[in-house]
């Protein structure tokens, strides 16, 4: 019985975690196992957690504007640990041009304000089971 496992993480210094918690709850209700690690995580902590928990997807929630610093670091560290296969999704206030850059780096999905939780659920389900 396979279960989709997702790490929901808040990298960096912003303390706004309501969005991350809402998404975590929605994924739970979609039957996934969600590992939530709380605020102020470093890229190293996130990647190490993703490896130990053997997750299918890492969801990063960033509202501080530091996404162009934090997200590439996580993506890079995953690759360096032979874990580039783990799907990375980013949620937060991400300008369109940044979103395009992040996608080119290997981020699977970028979700801004107004995204329905169902959209995120469907995104993960379709990318992980494929």
């Amino acid at each position, binding site marked *: 019985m396979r*279960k989709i496992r997702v790490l929901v993480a808040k990298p960096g210094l912003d303390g706004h975690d309501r969005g991350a918690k809402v998404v975590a709850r929605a994924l739970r209700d*979609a039957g996934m196992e969600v590992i939530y690690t709380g605020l102020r995580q470093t890229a190293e902590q996130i990647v190490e*957690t993703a490896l*130990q928990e*053997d997750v299918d997807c890492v969801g990063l929630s960033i509202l501080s504007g530091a996404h162009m610093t934090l997200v590439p670091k996580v993506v890079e560290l995953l690759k360096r640990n032979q874990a580039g296969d783990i799907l990375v999704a980013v949620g937060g206030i991400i300008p369109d041009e940044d979103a395009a850059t992040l996608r080119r780096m290997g981020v699977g999905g970028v979700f801004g304000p107004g995204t329905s939780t169902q959209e995120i659920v469907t995104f993960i389900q379709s990318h992980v089971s494929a």
Partner: protein
Amino acid sequence: MELVDRLLAGDRRACARLITLVENEAPEAKQALREVYPYTGNAHVIGVTGPPGAGKSSLVDKLTQYYREQGETVGVIAVDPSSPFTGGALLGDRIRMQERATDPGVFIRSMGTRGHMGGLALTTKDVIKILDAFGKDIILVETVGTGQDEIDIIKAADTVLVVTMPSLGDDIQAIKAGILEIGDIFVVNKADLDYVDKAVMELEMMLDFNSDKGWRPPVVRTVANMGVGIEELAEAIQAHIGYLRKEGLFEEKRRLKIEMELLEVLNQLIVKEVLEKAKKTNEFDNLVDLILERETDCYTAAEKLLNPK
């Protein structure tokens, strides 16, 4: 199995993958566990149980830190409940442990119960074996928040800590029958709160009523998030290990656990075999119908399934 070789060589990704296979009860899991088993039995397994919010995760975090300072490597298994409706789970025990996330001597894994009652997932015991073979000296197993009867942890751990806190008067009453009997050490966490003396006294009194035991469980006060009392707790754990070894109880306890586990596995195999046969012939559904119509009963039907003519 390549994954097992990599596990034994210390590859943490292989460790994580093997745990996933075991958790998913994947077909390869049995073979992996067969190969891993000869390398197990070296870790000391400490169970941490108690009601939700008592501070189990924080205690596990601080104990991990303590053992790391002593030069021991630590594996942590943190179990949280899965939803009975969707099968999903929010695994949040790591929040208190993230300072250990990047320590190469620590491996933390969160598990959902996946429908299993008793405070652990069905496969937690096998995940312990993976971490044991991975070479962890100490394995801390945190159960789901427990109430009265979730005592699976005794089948998995060498030493069981029962964690409670002050002002849970009713809960302390409630845990008397089930959980009070399984604690090797009792921890009153949040000992900086009011009524801590009352909580400790109630436990001490109840423990004093148990006259037959060679080991009188100590009651240790901690304030986990401040790191208070952790050394005393570790000393109590050490004393328990010493007691088990001195009295020759260590082997006896492990033998008992293996007996229980073998019975469990045997049960599963028999049920699986019988059901597979019965499903082929619709025998199972037919019997359910007959029981529903009061033409036979569960006991007769079960015997029929077990000995089909």
